[in-house]
């Protein structure tokens, strides 16, 4: 029999229809997503630096020059961005409608010069370098006061929205706080009042005690399949140390996060035969600004990273109702992901 479960943070209900499928094989594509055949050219590959805008940051070998080969992580602005850097946008009202200029930042983090390597196939120091780059770029962008929210995300595979195989992540900063984040922040404040502690700290404590949705736990992080996941094999990576901002992570913590990500992404590849996936970081808004709407933000919010394998389609029922039907229980998924 199916089961309805409520996600405590978002308030969203999901339908777990586990009788429809029980094994990861059911979600493996008949043929794993083919590596796209790129006819010898990729704008992110080493040697093609002239095809990208000038780099805003890079980790490079000593003695190599900006916008030339020799880098191992490289950050460039989007060449044709949907949002462009500019003065703080003004909100305009036209009757019942509101609009503002498309101001924002859009940067691409090229994770490696190697076109065919996955992030989790890189050495640990390299994955840590990518994570430190996320942190450092977010800190830098947050110094521009017009951006209230900085979002870090990765699309891997065509089905997950990646237009190139070359490993890359993206950072988008917006002058408004996205609706989904806003709702999460609001709910966390409400839940903090109700439980008198951060709801994520409580989830971490309960999930590590129960154990059936726990994928792994180490000295700084735990990974769980959430109680009410929207998608099969969805995972959340939580830092054990409470902090609303990813940017507060130390070098040591990011080293452990690199190890954690490498483990769970490799496991995802093994279990689901290299699925397309998205991951993104949810953190509190720009700490350099005051956010009057959330008086208790520092205590009530807890940054985390969400990993969503793309193995099912969002269709009319989900779009129309906000309900998600998930054919794999998180307990089953965690069992497979633990190996």
């Amino acid at each position, binding site marked *: 029999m199916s089961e309805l479960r409520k996600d405590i943070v978002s308030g969203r209900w999901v339908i777990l229809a586990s009788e429809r499928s029980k094994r990861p094989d059911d979600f493996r594509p008949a043929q794993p997503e083919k590596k796209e055949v790129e*006819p010898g050219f990729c*704008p992110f590959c080493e040697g093609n630096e002239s095809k990208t805008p000038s780099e805003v940051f890079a980790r490079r070998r000593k003695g190599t020059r900006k916008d030339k080969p020799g880098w191992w992580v490289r950050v460039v602005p989007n*060449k*044709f961005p949907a949002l462009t850097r500019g003065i703080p946008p003004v909100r305009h009202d036209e009757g019942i409608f509101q609009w503002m200029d498309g101001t924002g930042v859009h940067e691409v983090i090229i994770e490696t010069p190697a076109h065919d390597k996955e992030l989790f196939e890189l050495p640990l120091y390299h994955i840590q370098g990518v994570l430190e780059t996320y942190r450092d770029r977010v800190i830098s962008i947050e110094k521009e006061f017009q951006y209230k929210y900085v979002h870090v995300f990765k699309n891997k595979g065509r089905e997950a929205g990646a237009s190139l195989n070359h490993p890359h992540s993206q950072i988008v900063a917006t002058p408004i706080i996205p609706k989904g984040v806003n709702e999460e922040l609001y709910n966390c404040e409400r839940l903090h009042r109700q439980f008198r502690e951060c709801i994520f700290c409580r989830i971490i404590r309960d999930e590590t005690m129960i154990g059936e949705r726990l994928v792994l736990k180490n000295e700084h992080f735990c990974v769980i399949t959430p109680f009410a996941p929207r998608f099969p094999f969805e995972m959340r990576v939580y830092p054990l140390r409470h902090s609303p901002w990813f940017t507060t992570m130390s070098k040591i913590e990011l080293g452990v996060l690199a190890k954690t990500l490498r483990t769970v992404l490799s496991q995802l590849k093994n279990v689901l035969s290299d699925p397309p996936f998205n991951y993104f970081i949810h953190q509190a808004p720009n700490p350099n600004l005051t956010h009057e709407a959330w008086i208790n933000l520092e205590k009530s919010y807890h940054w985390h990273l969400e990993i969503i394998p793309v193995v099912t389609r969002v269709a009319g029922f989900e779009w129309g109702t906000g309900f998600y039907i998930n054919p794999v229980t998180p307990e089953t998924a965690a069992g497979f992901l633990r190996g």
Partner: protein
Amino acid sequence: MKKKLLVVEDEKNLCVLYKEELTKEGYHVTTVMDADAALRLVKKQKFDLIITDIRMPVKNGIDLITQIMALRKDIPIIINTAYQSYKRDFMTWAADAYIVKSASLEELKSKVKELVG
């Protein structure tokens, strides 16, 4: 000597318009209506600039520019499309400019001038 431009555009009327307007600007303009024809020409002739549409039958403009880049990385390319949405495809970075088609050709003309003089 006149700079040689190749325009790849599947709308016949637009081919005529671009040829007329860019010829008036002093360029030698060749037009083709599909990507394969463009690729054959690029293999045979040397162009100073390519202007390509994206949404075309058989092969789209993004596939065309990636194939051109594999042959010659140094040809400047302008994407000239009716759609903003292709900006999400990072392969468009192979091009030097991305123009959204409009009734006025001023942006196109000015970008051509910037890239080839």
